[in-house]
C-alpha cells in the first residue's frame, strides 16, 4: 500500500520503459535501411516522433506538479517520468543512427543527454540523501538546531561578561564570525574553513590552561559550550549540504530542459524546412 516513486506499482513504468527499449533495439537491428541508419529513414522518423512526444510529455510534469488538488498521484507521474525519461537514452540515440556533428541536431541530443544525466543524479540524490538527512538530524528539525545554537551564543555571552578580554574576544569571534550557508561552493562542501566557532574553540583549548584560577571554571564551561556549538554547526552544515544536493541538480535539469525544447523545435523545423 505504500510505495516509493521507484517501486511504484511493482515498477510498472520500469517494465513499460524496458519493453519500449527492447522493441526499439530489435526494430533497429531488424531494419536494414538502403543507405545507413539515420533520422531520415521511416524508423528514424518513428523513433524521432516517439522521442519528441516523450520529451514534451516529460516536460509537462513541471505544469502537472503545480496542479494542486487534481485527481492524480504525483508520485506515479514521477515514477513514469523517471523510467520513460531514461528510455530516451535508447530511443533518441538510435534515432540519431550514431550520426553526430557540429549542428543543431546534435546540440539537441547533447542537451537531452545533459538533462537525462542531471536527472540521473536526481534519482541518486532522492534515493540516498533523505535517509542520510534523517540520520544526520537525529530527530531534531533545522529550526531546533538553529535555536540551540542561538541559545548557546546567548549563554556564552553571559558567561564571558566578567571574564578577561582575551577570553571574551574568543566568544565574540564565535558569536559574530560564524556563518551558516554562504556561497554555493561552501554550501556544497558542507564545511567552513574560516568558521569563527571552530577557530575560537581551538584557541580557547590552548588558552584554558593560561587563565587565572578564578576564571578557570567559567572558561572550561565556555569550552564545552563552544565545542557543542561546533558539533551543532557540523550537523546544520551537513543538513544544508544534503538539501543542496537534492536541489542543485534541478538547477541544471530545468534550464537545460528549456534549452532542449528550444533546440528540439529548431531541429524539427529545420529537418522539415530543408527536406
Amino acid at each position, binding site marked *: 500500500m*505504500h510505495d*516509493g*516513486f521507484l517501486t511504484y506499482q511493482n515498477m510498472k513504468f520500469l517494465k513499460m520503459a524496458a519493453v519500449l527499449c527492447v522493441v526499439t533495439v530489435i526494430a533497429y537491428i531488424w531494419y536494414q535501411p538502403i543507405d545507413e541508419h539515420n533520422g531520415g529513414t521511416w524508423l528514424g522518423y518513428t523513433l524521432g516522433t516517439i522521442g519528441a512526444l516523450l520529451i514534451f510529455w516529460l516536460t509537462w510534469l513541471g505544469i502537472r506538479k503545480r*496542479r494542486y488538488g487534481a485527481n492524480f*498521484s504525483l*508520485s506515479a507521474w514521477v515514477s513514469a517520468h523517471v523510467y520513460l525519461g531514461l528510455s530516451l537514452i535508447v530511443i533518441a540515440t538510435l534515432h540519431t543512427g550514431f550520426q553526430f556533428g557540429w549542428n543543431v541536431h546534435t546540440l539537441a541530443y547533447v542537451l537531452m543527454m545533459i538533462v537525462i544525466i542531471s536527472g540521473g543524479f536526481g534519482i541518486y540524490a*532522492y534515493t540516498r540523501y*533523505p535517509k542520510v*538527512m534523517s540520520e544526520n*538530524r537525529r530527530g531534531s528539525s533545522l529550526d531546533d538546531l538553529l535555536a540551540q545554537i542561538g541559545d548557546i551564543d546567548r549563554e556564552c555571552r553571559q558567561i564571558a561578561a566578567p571574564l578577561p578580554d582575551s577570553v571574551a574576544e574568543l566568544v565574540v569571534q564565535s558569536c559574530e564570525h560564524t556563518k551558516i550557508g554562504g556561497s554555493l561552493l561552501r554550501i556544497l562542501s558542507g564545511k567552513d574553513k574560516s568558521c569563527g566557532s571552530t577557530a575560537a574553540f581551538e584557541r580557547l583549548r590552548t588558552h584554558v590552561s593560561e587563565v587565572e584560577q578564578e576564571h578557570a571554571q567559567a572558561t572550561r564551561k565556555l569550552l564545552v559550550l563552544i565545542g557543542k556549538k561546533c558539533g551543532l554547526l557540523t550537523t546544520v552544515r551537513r543538513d544544508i549540504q544534503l538539501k543542496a544536493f537534492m536541489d542543485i541538480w534541478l538547477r541544471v535539469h530545468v534550464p537545460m530542459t528549456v534549452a532542449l525544447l528550444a533546440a528540439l523545435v529548431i531541429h524539427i523545423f529545420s529537418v522539415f524546412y530543408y527536406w
Partner: protein
Amino acid sequence: MADHYDIAIVGSGPSGLSAGARAAQKGINHILLETTDHASDTIYKFQKKKFVMATPDVMPLRSDVSFEVGIREDILETWDREIDEQKINISYKSEVTAITGEKDNFTLKIKDGRTITANHVVLSIGMQGNIRKLDVDGDDWEGVQYQLDDPEEYEDERIIVVGAGDAAIENAVALAAQNKVALVNRKGEFARVKSGNLTLITESIESGLLECYYNASTARVTPGEIILKVPEGETVVPCERIIARLGAMAPRGFVESCGIKFTSEDRSALPDLSEKYESSVPGLYVVGALAGYPLIKLAMNQGYEVVETISGNNIAPADEPLLEEKFASLEGRAVNEVLQTIQENVPLLSHMSALQFREFMIDSTIHRVQKDDVIFLRNDYTNSVYSIVEGSVSALINPDDASERVKLKKGSFFGEMGLIAGRRRTATIVANEDSFLVETPRRAMLRLINSVPGSKKVLDTAAIYRQIQTHLAPNIEKELLKDIVDSAAVESLSAGDVLINQGDDADSVFLIRSGSFVVSSLIGGRDVVLSYIPSGNYIGEMALLTEAPRSATVKATVASEVIKIDAAAFRALLKTEHELRREIEAKFQDRMVENLETEERPEAGDVIDFLVGQGVGEASDVLLIDESLCVRCDNCEKACAETHGGISRLNREAGPTFETLHVPTSCRHCEHPHCMSDCPADAIHRAPDGEVFIDDTCIGCGNCAGNCPYGVIQLAYPAKEKPGLLSWLLFGSGPGPGQDKASGKKVEGARSMAAKCDMCKDIEGGASCVSACPTGAAIRVKPEEFLSITNLAKAG
C-alpha cells in the same frame, strides 16, 4: 389617581422586552418597568464585545423583537432601536418595590413614589438583579466591583478575582493580559466550568499568567488589600481592585412578598408556575430566567406567549410548525398522535417528559423506508442513532456473507455504537419491510442519556447485547446470551491504565467500546509492544478457550471504555455451541499469528509504541511521512495551502520522528475530537467519511486551537486570490503556484478564522498532501493499518 394598565411588565430583559413588544403590537395598554436607565441590564453588563449565543439553534424565535447570534453591542443597539420603532411603553429608572393585589387589580409601588395599577403583571426580573455579594467586612470599599465591562480599561493593577465560575475565569484571564491577577477559588479545583474554560484557566495558572489561591475564601476587605482565609491561616494580599463573580440567585424575598410560592425551600428553587407561566397568584405571571429559562431565545418566546395567553389566545408551543413539517411525510397524522405513537412503541424514548420529547424530536429526523432500502452501510462514518417505530430492519453483520443477518424488531434501536466510539459503522442495515424510523443525532442522544436515567439503562443493556452478538456470537439467539449479558459490566479506564496483567488469571474477556489499547509482553526482560487494538475489537479472548494465565499485558492508550464479560459464562455457552467454538478458535488463531510475527520483529513494537506516544491512539486518520523517501520539497505543504485558500494546515518539518517515520503537525481526526468540545458557534463537524472539519460559521474565538493537544489548528486571515498559472508563468504576476504558502497577514476588514486539515473532503483527488508528494513519502494511515506501517520502518 394612579396610572392604570392592562399589563404591567416588570424588568426589560429579553423576556420582558419581548412581552412588551407583543403587547405594543396587539395594541394592549401596557407599561414596561425597568430599574436602570437602559434596557436589558444583564446583557448590558456582559463583558464588552462578548459573543452572545442564540441556542437552542433549532428552536424558532417567536418574538416581535429580533435576536440572532452576535456581539453584545449589536444586540443592544438593535433592541434600543426596536423599542422606539415598536412604541414599547418603557419606563426607565422605575424600580418596583412592591406588588400587591389580585387579578384585575394589582398595585405596583415604584421607588420614586409613583404607584401603578394593572390587570395583569408579568414578572421578568431575571436573576442578575440579585447578584451574590462578598458579604464581608469592608466590602463597601470602592475597589470592590461585581462586574467587568471592558478588561482593557485596566492596566498595571493588582487585581483579585473572587469566584471560580465561567465569568470569573473569563474575567481573570482577560485581565491578566495587562494586569497582575490572582484568582480566589473556594475549592481545590475548578468544577462545573465549561471544559474550554477549564483548559484556559489551568494553562494560565501553569504558565504563570495568573496566580490562584485554592481552598481560599474572603475573610474581610480593607482599602488596598484583601484578607484571605487559606488552609494555612490568613493571608493579606495587597490589591487595587477586587472583582467578585459569585453568581446570582432568585430574588426570593421580593418574589415571595408578591405572594408567589416557590417549589421548595431549597435556595436554588424556582417559583411554582403553571404550564402557561402563571404563578400561585392568578394574573401574576413569571417568565425568563426567574422561571428557570436562562436562555435568551427561550425567554423571548415566553414573553411573547405570556402576552398571548393573557389576551385569551391559547397558542400552540413555538415548535409546533417545526414538528408539523418534520412529520409531513406521515400524511395527515397529527403531531401529538405521532409523538404519542413513538413514545409508546420505543421503550428507549418513553422515559422523557412531553417537553423534553418535543425538543428531542426537533433534533431528530423521520424516515419512511421501504423493503430492502439501505439505512446505512458498513464503514460509514455517521454517528446517529435510529429507533424503529414501525416495521423492522436487518443488520448484515458479515461483510462476506449477506445471509448472516440479525433482525431488529419494532421498538428496538440501532447505530448506538456511534454514540460511544467515533468509529465507522460495524454493519450494514437494511429495511425488512415498509418501516418508520426516527434518526437522532449523537448530540441529542447524549443529552437524553445524561438527563434521563431510564433511557441510559435501556441503552446500555441493549448495547452490551448488540456488541456481544456482533463481535463474538453472531448467530446465537438472544435468549442464550442472557447469562453472559447479565455478567457483563462496563469499565472505564484512563490513558495508561492496565487492563490485563501478564500472568494474571484469565477470568474475563473485554470488548473495547471506545478508545484503544496496546498489547505488550515481557520478552527477554524487556517490555515489547506486540500490537495495537482499536475500539470494536476484543481483548483477552484466550480466556474463552482455556484457563491458562494471561500471556500479555494490555494498557489503555487513551481514555477508554470496555465491556467486561465473564469468561466462565461464555465457556458454558461454548460447551453446547460447537459451531461457535470453531469460529472463535479460527478468529483467535489469526491474532496469535500476528503476535508471533511482531515478536520476531521487536522494532515493529517500538514503532507502535512511538505512534501511540504521539497520540495516534485516538486518531482516526493520521498523516505520516516516510523520511527515507521524503526529499523535503514541501510540496505537501504547498498543495495544502493551494487547495485551502492559501493557508497550509500542516507543518511538515515540525513534529517528532522515530527512525525514519515522521509524524508531522497535522490533524489526526481524533475519535472524540478535542476541538469539538467547546465550539461556541458549533462550527466543527465530522463529515460522513470521518473528516473533522471547521465550517464558515467559525467566529475565530480560538477555543479549538487551545483545546487541540496536537497544535494542529491555527487562526489565520484568509490569503489573497492568486493569479492564474499562465499569467504567473508568462508575465510574472505572482505569487505563483506553491509560493507564499502562508501569508498570515491581516487583510483590512478580514476576520481570523480557525484553519485545520479537512482531509480535502471536497477535493476530487483526495488528501492533496498525499497526492502531491512526488516520491510517495506522505501517507495517510488509519488505526487498523498501524501494524502494516511497522513494515515501513523495517523497509525504510
